[in-house]
């Protein structure tokens, strides 16, 4: 598998998290595991948890607690209407960007 530049991933973490939470409500570590299963093994918890906190502060994600047998409750994230709009916007921006990059790098050299 090709390595993915962590700096490139940092710019994409919002899009990836909004997409995963829109797909299924989940808690912090479970989202890290889902990212790893999708091939983003270099996406560390130290990047994911702050991104989730910022999305919650910006009201793109909402949270609720599910009690645990032992220790603190799990904090689940679900997408808000503002988050869905943000996901649409970032999806469109991503499509536009990949189109531009693909067009540029696939050009045949003279």
């Amino acid at each position, binding site marked *: 598998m090709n390595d993915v530049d962590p700096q490139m991933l940092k710019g994409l973490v919002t899009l990836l998290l909004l997409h995963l939470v829109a797909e299924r409500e989940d808690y*912090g*570590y479970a989202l890290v595991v889902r990212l790893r299963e999708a091939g983003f093994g270099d996406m560390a918890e130290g990047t994911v948890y702050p991104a989730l906190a910022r999305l919650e502060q910006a009201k793109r994600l909402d949270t609720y607690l599910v009690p645990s047998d032992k220790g603190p409750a799990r904090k689940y994230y679900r997408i808000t209407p503002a988050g869905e709009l943000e996901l649409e916007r970032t999806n469109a921006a991503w499509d536009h960007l990949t189109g531009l990059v693909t067009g540029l790098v696939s050009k045949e050299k003279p």
Partner: protein
Amino acid sequence: MTVTIESATAVLAGGAGIVLLVLALGWIGMVIRFRAPVGSWRDQALTAKYVMRYDNALEWRGVARAERRSLTDELRRNIADAAATEGVSDSLERLGHPRDLANAVAARDRGPTWALGSFVALGVWFMLQMGLFFSADVLATGIEQLETSNADVSVTTPVFLGTTFEVTTDAAGDLNSLGVESSAIALLIPALAFVVFSTPWRLGTRKTARSAVEI
């Protein structure tokens, strides 16, 4: 109340002992509060150490107590879940330094913090005490050099908000006792000024910071 050098030393020693006891009990309470919900004693201690440093960094970033509690509880839960598959050491390593994590979580400026304000207030209080100490020392040295036997000199100065310095000498004219008596106003005025000016400043800067949430 007049405090002589001998009684002040005893009070300081006793006070330092009480402060150390309170700090030790507070530290034990923090370890119990922040330990991992599952795992060995070593895992719980490692988690407690990490989460304590994270909580402390969040406090310095101006994150309110309720939000800090929510963030630290979530982190403890996530560490426990990660530790079940990859071990506590690896999961903590993947989190990075607790200060960096706190800075990333509380990325926006939240305005001045009570922790910082208290630190500054403590510094000002220390400087005032040093001022009192050196003023008392200058006065005592001056009286001693007069070599007056059985002198009892009392000086009240508005510079330190009505604090009274009292110096006595023995029959040979040497320093017998040095006392400093502070009025309640000397403590109340700085405390009142701190509360009156810090609260609106803190609320005002927080309101500005709140309107600048970025993702």
